């Protein structure tokens, strides 16, 4: 896991990191059974 890519990715996309994390959590939650997370 490359944490720098996470920080840089949010910056390049122009989104707040916490908002980005919450957005991705929700996106993955919506497909949780397919990706083995619920």
């Amino acid at each position, binding site marked *: *896991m*490359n*944490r720098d*890519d*996470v920080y*840089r*990715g*949010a910056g*390049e*996309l122009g*989104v707040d*990191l*916490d908002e*980005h*994390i*919450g*957005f*991705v*959590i*929700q*996106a*993955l*939650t*919506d*497909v*949780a059974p*397919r*990706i*083995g*997370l*619920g």
Partner: protein
Amino acid sequence: MIDRDGAWQVLTEFTKSESLRKHALAVEASMRAYAARYGEDQERWGMAGMLHDFDYEMHPTAPRHPVKGAEILLGRGVPAPVVHAVLAHADYSGYPRVSRLDRGLYACDELSGFVTACALVRPGKAIAGLQTASVRKKLQDKAFRGP
């Protein structure tokens, strides 16, 4: 242009690992969500997410991944902007991130993997209830490596 079923066939032809396939689906989901948010093409954004690491088992080392794989994608009818995003998600490829699609894939790839790792160490390996603050805390915990 190749459709989602075609992209899935390409992915599963070259990717046998269940964990890599799940990662592909996770990044696809993140990309589709961002495409909807930005009013972008969900099919293209989702395809970039699904296929960004499709050649990893064949070419696990840089720069063959994803440069060699990109040639295959073009031959399978994957749109050039999607292929560019796949190339640009790897810094070492030399392909700059110039479009929102490029930047979206780069932003979604590593974080989707990290959020997955955070969920997999929870009881029941469930993402439901996972909080932003918990992910942020693990990002700051350099010792956290996931399952």
